[in-house]
């Protein structure tokens, strides 16, 4: 009888672990923004960025970041706890290579439960930037950025607890040179 109750306890624990794991996986999948529908833009783009870093790769990379180097330590701090970083960016030689439907296919996913649009910026110079956050209770569970310019389309998806302030400050630090978007725009204008 005692043996039977022990077996039941083990089975119950295993079941709970499976259910918990499935819930976590499902949550991660919900936070993941699908961008496969944009694959066709690769052929049109003059340059593309396609970054897919899952949790395993983040952890592997984190091992190669030194905590003694302040720059690397800040990067390590930012990526610590993240479950995935996915970036797709297309740069075109001509304008209007992507369609509004492409943008809508991303936006429709970000209208799902949990996602909140915290920033929507429209600029003639720098295009549109939309920032979405996945809120899990009182914590940020993910980030999505949809940036569209006449000749550029970028979709960013970060899964896991994101510190926006630290992430924003990273520009210009180790291995992350400032893109100097402002200055390049000014030059273009001149």
């Amino acid at each position: 009888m005692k043996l039977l109750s022990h077996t039941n306890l083990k089975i119950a624990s295993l079941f709970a672990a499976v259910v918990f794991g499935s819930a976590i996986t499902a949550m991660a999948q919900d936070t993941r923004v699908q961008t496969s529908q944009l694959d066709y833009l690769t052929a049109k783009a003059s340059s593309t960025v396609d970054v897919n870093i899952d949790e395993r790769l983040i952890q592997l990379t984190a091992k190669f970041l030194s905590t003694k180097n302040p720059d690397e330590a800040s990067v390590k701090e930012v990526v610590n706890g993240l479950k995935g970083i996915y970036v797709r960016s297309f740069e075109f030689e001509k304008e209007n290579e992507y369609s509004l439907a492409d943008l809508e296919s991303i936006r429709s996913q970000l209208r799902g439960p949990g996602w909140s649009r915290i920033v929507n910026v429209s600029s003639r110079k720098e295009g549109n930037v939309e920032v979405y956050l996945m809120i899990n209770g009182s914590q940020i569970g993910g980030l999505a950025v949809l940036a569209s310019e006449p000749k550029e389309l970028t979709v960013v998806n970060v899964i896991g607890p994101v510190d926006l302030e630290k992430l924003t400050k990273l520009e210009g630090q180790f291995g992350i040179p400032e893109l100097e978007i402002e200055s390049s725009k000014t030059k273009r204008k001149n």
Partner: protein
Amino acid sequence: MNEEYLWDRTGHTDEEIKELEQVLSELKYQPQQLEIPAGVGKARSSWALRTLAIAATIAMLLLGAGLWRGRQGSVGHQAVNTAKVLPTVQNLNQETAANTGHSSEDLAPAFSSNSTARRHVAATHRSVTPRLARRAAPQPTANEVAEALAAKQQLMLALRVVSAKLTVAQRQTLGTTTANQIHNQHKIG
């Protein structure tokens, strides 16, 4: 000789048999009560033995855990610091640096310094006995190191893009007095 006597002790008894019975009667089974010698007392309390056994088991487990942890730490030091892997890492850094325009030291500072790596290797040799070294878990292969470095490149690129886009959003959001059309939708809280 009457054989029936031999089976059930009936009938005529042979003299020779009687003599044999008398001689062997001394050796026959004598039922008597079991006598416990006075020197043998009651066994000691099994409670003390059990406690001792449990304590010994815990001590063995702690010792084993300590050894295992020490070994893990030593193996961690060994990771990617072998002379075989280093050239591969340096080559990768140089290749990546050539492709991206960054210095190889920027790309992988953890491996850029030979002296640092040698210090790690020396520390490893000091801390790991040859016996443990033979038993140590397999070190990361060159492929794993290459994968990690490639992932690091991707991570930096991704962070650069994310950070740049967030900076644009932040700058535009703060510059609300400009002619840009800005919508901040603070749905949180």
